[in-house]
């Protein structure tokens, strides 16, 4: 029986914990923030985060310290830190858990990170449907201002910071960091051409770092316990703990915190409680809906960026969705493609036209209107989307199509005329 490694969920796992600022401080919260303000420079923080090997938890797994390092100091242009709380990848719900149940852990991480990148106005871009999280964050930020942990000349350090909670309005693509910045600027959320990267020209054409909620929530631990302590949780190249969102057809869905590298099968059985009564495991989507699906016999692998890549899938947002023998894969895929086609921003030809075409073809397939050869055609069409689009959404939609057909071809053929 495996156990959770509690860093981010340390407080949440305590019975009765409500996440108020007082409670958070009783467990030692904001002592790191005070220490940072008193004793450290932004470069000290940057270095420690870089040394810790922290990789982004939003999906791409880019080393956070490096990202901060790229931020250009441009005269006359302020630096910005924008937290990506647009969590929209189906099967992922860890950021909401953090924001609702222990907002101050995340906020302390946000404060320290803003300090590290010399940012005086930080934005938290929360997806619009997260009304509750938005309310809580706004309320708790007001508390922080009251406690003087935020505002002008914080605790006499000379450093000033303002945090703004910005609500999205229903567009998955705004989770992509450059689309998010456009959206924050009051525009349609269209992914931008890179370069320039946000670190050079981001929000309002100023140097900007976009970081995921969970990524930032790791920062207080790193600054308190040190880079080595952080690395101790996890494997080489995959430092720290990771929040895994387990959902789908399991007994105990929920968010679980593991050391990186813990076995996926154990997560599903020990934490998730295994499949529902009288069902057998069929497949697992390991990293949010866009990661390639794994068969039941492929899940005996470590859960980290590298292991899953080796298994030709990906850790992505670490949303583990469990599928059992009752699941009709073509139908499930159709629903997924409805999602991606609906969420495409529409800029790129392959994503705009291709995903919708596949949606229509799958609709026709389920209505038993297509001949067998169409299964290959659908596969080919998906292949023409991959690697040809501006942002990763095109791939995110096409990859499940290919992996579902690769692994469950018979089911697709079964729907053919």
């Amino acid at each position, binding site marked *: 029986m495996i156990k959770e490694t509690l860093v981010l969920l340390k407080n949440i796992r305590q019975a009765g914990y409500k996440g108020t600022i007082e409670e958070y401080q009783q467990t030692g919260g904001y002592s790191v923030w005070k220490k940072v303000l008193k004793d450290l420079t932004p470069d000290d923080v940057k270095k420690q985060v870089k040394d810790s090997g922290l990789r982004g938890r939003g999906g791409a797994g880019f080393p956070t310290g490096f990202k901060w390092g790229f931020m250009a100091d441009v005269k006359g242009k302020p630096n910005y830190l924008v937290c990506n709380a647009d969590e929209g990848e189906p099967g992922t719900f860890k950021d909401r858990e953090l924001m609702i149940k222990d907002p101050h852990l995340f906020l302390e991480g946000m404060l320290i990170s803003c300090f590290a990148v010399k940012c005086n106005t930080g934005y938290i871009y929360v997806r619009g449907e997260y009304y509750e999280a938005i309310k809580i964050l706004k309320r708790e930020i007001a508390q922080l201002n009251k406690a003087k942990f935020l505002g002008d000349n914080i605790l006499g350090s000379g450093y000033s910071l303002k945090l703004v909670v910005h609500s999205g309005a229903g567009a998955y693509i705004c989770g992509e960091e450059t689309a998010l910045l456009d959206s924050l600027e009051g525009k349609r959320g269209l992914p931008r*051409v890179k370069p320039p990267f946000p670190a050079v020209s981001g929000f309002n054409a100023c140097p900007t770092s976009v970081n995921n909620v969970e990524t930032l929530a790791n920062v207080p631990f790193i600054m308190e316990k040190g880079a080595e302590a952080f690395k101790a949780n996890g494997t080489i190249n995959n430092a720290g703990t990771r929040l895994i969102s387990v959902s789908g057809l399991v007994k105990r869905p929920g968010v679980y915190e593991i050391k990186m590298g813990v076995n996926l099968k154990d997560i599903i059985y020990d934490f998730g409680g295994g499949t529902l009564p009288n069902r057998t495991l069929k497949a697992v989507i390991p990293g949010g809906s866009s990661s390639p699906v794994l068969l039941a016999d492929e899940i005996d692998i470590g859960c980290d960026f590298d292991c899953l890549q080796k298994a030709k899938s990906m850790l992505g947002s670490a949303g583990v969705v469990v599928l059992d023998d009752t699941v009709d894969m073509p139908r499930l895929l159709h629903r997924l493609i409805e999602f991606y086609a609906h*969420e*495409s921003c529409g*800029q*790129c030809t392959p994503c705009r*036209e*291709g995903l*919708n075409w596949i949606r229509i073809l799958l609709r026709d397939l389920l209505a038993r209107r297509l001949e067998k050869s169409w299964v290959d055609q659908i596969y080919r069409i998906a292949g*023409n989307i991959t*690697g040809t689009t501006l942002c990763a959404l095109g791939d995110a939609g096409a990859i499940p199509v290919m992996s579902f057909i690769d692994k469950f071809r018979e089911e697709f053929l079964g729907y053919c005329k």
Partner: protein
Amino acid sequence: MGNYFFIDGKKIPFEPGESILKAALRAGFDIPHYCYHPSLSTPATCRMCLIDVVDSGNGKGLPTLQTSCTTLAKADIKISAQGEKVVRAREGVLEFLLVNHPLDCVICDQAGECTLQDFAFEYGSGVSIVNHEKRVYGLRKIGSFLELERNRCIHCTRCVRFSQEITGNSELGTFGRGHQLTVDTFIDKPLSDQFQGNLADICPVGAITLKDFRFKKRVWKLKSVPSICDRCATGCSINLDHKDGTIYRITPRENQEVNRWWMCDHGRVGFHDYYADDKLQKFYTKGSQKIDRSQALTNMLTTIKASAGSICFINTASSTLEEAYSLKLFAKLLGDKAKIYYPKPVAQRKDSDIWIDNLISDDKSPNSRGLKLLGFSSLEEESFSKIIKDSTDTIIVVGQLNKSWQTLLSDITDNQRLIQLTCLKNELLGGMGLGLPLIPVFEKSGIYVNRQGRAQKVNRLNFSNGTSLEECSLWKNLADELDPIDNDQPKDNAEALIKLAESDKRWQDLTDKKLLAKGILID
């Protein structure tokens, strides 16, 4: 070592900071593309211009295909534009573009100059497997000048970016998202600017077309002559698209020094003023009596001969440099009693920050600057009025006066004589004097000097209505009558130009055809 990179082994020079696509196109290497337009920002969204960087300068290629419109050219990198990966990706993009395209090419005005047709032909797979209903957008009105057929749109957003970045009015926008993305104006609001025709030019497909040209002619049947627009002192470079003696449309011709890629709507459809139902081919006496050509010419000669007092020529600066010079020589022949003027050009209003807003000149004559260079005196409206009232004997107007000047002519007394030469509609003349038709600009070959002082070549179509007068030969004929032995009058524009160049070194470059084709700053 210069700045070169390689596409499929071919050496391509580039300027630092330039994209692969831009450098390739300049070198004459075609990479298919839609959303890229040299005048606009680069969204890199059509994905048509994908290329494979097989060696990024370090012996290693890039793992994924890149858009050549955004990838900067670097010395010695190697690009594949014909490798299997690229070919397949292109076929894919074209297949996607056609999934929802109505394929109504048979009735589409863009057919023949549509890059969707062209690229699908050249780079497409040639196979279509689409077997379901296509997307249909509702009908839209975007004003009286253009037709918007959104079902043909390939969502390149060139039109939207034009309205945001070139005219700056943002009257077009992109709405919706995903496969419901569409371009449109706000709730049937008509476009309001004077540069709408350019939208039809930059739209790579038949989604935006000119109402004026709708269903008029298949474009491949048209022949094209490069020329200069005569509608104002800017002198935009244009192409005259014609067939069987009729102009069907005028499109701008790229000229970075003058009009970049654009022209205004007035210049675009202004040719209808000349080629309306009543082409002015008729000759009139005072009181609007029709007379025949030779009679009219005799009348003109008699009038000039009979003028004991002063003769005043008003040239409205739609004459070419050659014609104006020829008039100058003719006036010289008449001696001191002849004076030539041109209406003082309207001063250009202040520069706007938006480049294209400065395109249209407030001076509506194409050659005021040329006449000034020839030493013609400019005339204020008041002075013109005075000239008329001073009982100038004979007034000869060459070209069409604007309305208020034309009105002044009604002050003419019975003792004065008026001759008007124009190529516009005859009712404007009002029967106040002798009226003779001139050939319009499209039948002339000559030089205009624009507002910038740039001499530019006007080219003629090879057709003429036969009866209208050519200015040089008119003056020549009259001169021969007045002084058959000792006149230096050139018989046509070509001869006039030679004589002009002989008269003063400053005009010499104008005889160099190659130079002139590009335009020469002479002032």
